């Protein structure tokens, strides 16, 4: 039993973090209130795919790097920490669905970056199906060739070519969000979510993003509190802020521990794996949400501006907590 990262896992963390810091620095949007640039620049997307980010946890037989879910979780925690845009989560999940369906050609296209996949969350049903009708919420709609939908029992890939996507003025302007009405859209692939723990993987990787956000938004808040002065001393010396910060740290510690416990439990095929994954998602969502709220409060008026970065975590979390499965359904299934 060892819940700490191995040196190899530390190396994955360092590599991803360094790349993100260089290529996707987290900045405020200032006076830009609408998205004017692509979600992710083509060459950057290609570079990330070349680094193997979409295939880290895919078996070598399926053309992947062959790491486990814990390593994927480390990658996504870093993507969350760096507020990386781009269809990483949907790409990884789609690659796993395609691999489960045995469609190695599609796997190759996805992980090479040749095709892109949006993330679909159904609105009024909780299951993907072979021929899907209903309202869908979509994230990463930009240049999306496919959409992946992961639900508790079934997971599916749908082709987007004949689907009309209505863009949504997303609260997080760095993400391409949309809505669509599927009218008997046939699944390219429909597989059991259980077979490759697809639902658990989706919950855990979404949780990993949230954990990364919770950690980073805490870090910037603590740093701010050490330098900002009022009443002749750093605001971080006031017990009110220490109380917020102590609970921010507690939420991070618990959510991150549960994240990796769940990842290992899924890999080890514990009977409780799904429950662990749901608990990971629940704790991660709470951590990202509440830590974000405190971050704005700690930053005071500056936290209310788009020139500082706390709102980036708050608005990104607002999207992340609304993908795959909403809060009450997560809790009800724990």
């Amino acid at each position, binding site marked *: 039993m060892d819940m700490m990262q191995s040196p190899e896992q530390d190396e994955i963390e360092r590599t991803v973090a360094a790349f993100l810091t260089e290529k996707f620095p987290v900045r405020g*949007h*200032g*006076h830009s*209130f609408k998205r004017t640039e692509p979600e992710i620049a083509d060459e950057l997307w290609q570079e990330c795919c070349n680094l193997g980010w979409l295939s880290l946890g895919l078996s070598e037989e399926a053309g992947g790097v062959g790491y486990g879910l814990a390593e994927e979780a480390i990658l996504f925690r870093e993507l969350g920490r760096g507020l990386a845009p781009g269809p990483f989560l949907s790409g990884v999940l789609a690659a796993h669905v395609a691999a489960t369906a045995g469609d190695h050609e599609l796997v190759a296209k996805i992980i090479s970056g040749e095709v892109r996949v949006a993330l679909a*969350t159904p*609105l*009024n*049903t*909780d299951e993907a199906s072979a021929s899907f009708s209903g309202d869908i*919420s979509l994230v990463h709609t930009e240049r999306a060739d496919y959409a992946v939908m992961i639900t508790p029992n079934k997971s599916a890939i749908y082709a987007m070519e004949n689907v009309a996507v209505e863009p*949504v*003025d*997303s*609260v997080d302007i760095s993400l391409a*969000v949309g809505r669509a009405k599927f009218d008997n859209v046939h699944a390219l692939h429909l597989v059991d979510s259980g077979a490759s723990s697809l639902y658990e993987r989706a919950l855990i990787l979404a949780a990993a993003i949230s954990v990364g956000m919770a950690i980073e938004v805490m870090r910037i808040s603590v740093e701010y509190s050490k330098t900002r*002065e*009022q*009443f*002749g001393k750093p*605001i971080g010396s*006031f017990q*009110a*802020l220490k109380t917020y910060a102590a609970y921010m740290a507690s939420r991070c510690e618990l959510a991150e521990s549960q994240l990796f416990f769940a990842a290992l439990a899924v890999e080890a095929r514990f009977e409780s794996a799904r429950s662990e994954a749901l608990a990971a998602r629940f704790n991660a969502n709470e951590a990202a949400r509440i830590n974000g*709220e405190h971050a*704005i*409060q700690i930053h*005071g*008026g500056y*936290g*209310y*501006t*788009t*020139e500082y970065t706390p*709102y980036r975590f*708050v*608005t990104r979390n*607002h*999207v992340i907590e*609304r993908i795959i499965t*909403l*809060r*009450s*359904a997560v809790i009800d299934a724990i």
Partner: protein
Amino acid sequence: MDLEFTLEERSFREQVRTWLEENKPSEPRPKSDDLEQRNYDLAWQRTLYDNGWAGIAWPKAYGGRELGTIAQLIWFEEYAKAKAPYLGANFVGINHGGPTLIARATEEQKTFHLPKILKGEVVWCQGFSEPGSGSDLASLSTKAVVDGDQLVITGQKIWTSFAHIADYQELLVRTDPDAPKHKGISWVICDMHAPGITIRQIPTIIRGAEFCEVFYDEVRLPLSSVVGNLNDGWSVAMSTLSFERGTGFMAAIIELTTTIEELIDIARHKKSPDGKRTYFQDDEYRRKLLSLKAEIMALRSATYRAISRNMRQDAPGPEGSILKLVMSDLNQKLARLGVDILGIEALAFGGSHRDGGVSTAAWLGSFSGSIAGGTSEIQRNIVSERVLGMPRG
């Protein structure tokens, strides 16, 4: 104890309600944060003035109605219930700068400024906070040096709403750098068109830019711009709130009340994510909604009580901090519950928080409540130290 209003008060309420219903603008207030807003806000203020609704509690000598606290309360209640326009650019003049002038300005200052405010001829803004002086307002460092019959001002203010479209500013400056921090401040009427002033709008998470930074580079104002005595500006600033006796708060309460009812109504019709029943049929959401409603009712009652208390004393006590503290907490809880129930719809930015109501923008806007006008941390210190008498740190 008594909840009844007098016959006269009820008749006043009826008049207000009828007039607002018939005369409130049909056009919504522009969201543009520019001159278009200024024109809209001033035109509406002029309409109020022309019809005798400007300055309910202001002295008749300056164009007001000179009615009492209860009439003022009724005005705010009915104004909010009618969903009449957000005061916007008129806010500081009507609710803050004007009342301060009434309390502390010279006859000459009052005669010049107050009618302009009531008639919608000028926009006022506030210059209190500075980049280095937020919670610790009295540490402000924008300096004003007396030079003959002029003040020469150099420094910077921040979070000044509507500075970019304002004519005057209630400005706190340090006129004696050697005095203890509360004793060297003066309250000055600043002409926003004076040379040496530059303004930068600050973008906010509600996608607006009504907040500004104001920079003062040797701005010269006549010494007669000082309100109250030189170096007595802290007491002038503190006298502002005593004027309206907490009635202004009632407008915010009505908005909260309207919004929780709106949200309950949404929850009664909107299907929860499993598609099998409404949010209101879900026990968790129903109880969250109804217990929040109960808290909002209690905040309303506490506001009535605060007004009653304030009517019995010269200056409002520190209990007002309880209302502000709870108000921002409840507003955040409500806004958060709103986006929870909106579910996936809440991904869209939607509406504007100034329109009240349930929206993602309202949720983002709710973050400001526990920061602006004194953070919740400061309010809690005030309540514990000044209401409960706990020792300073």
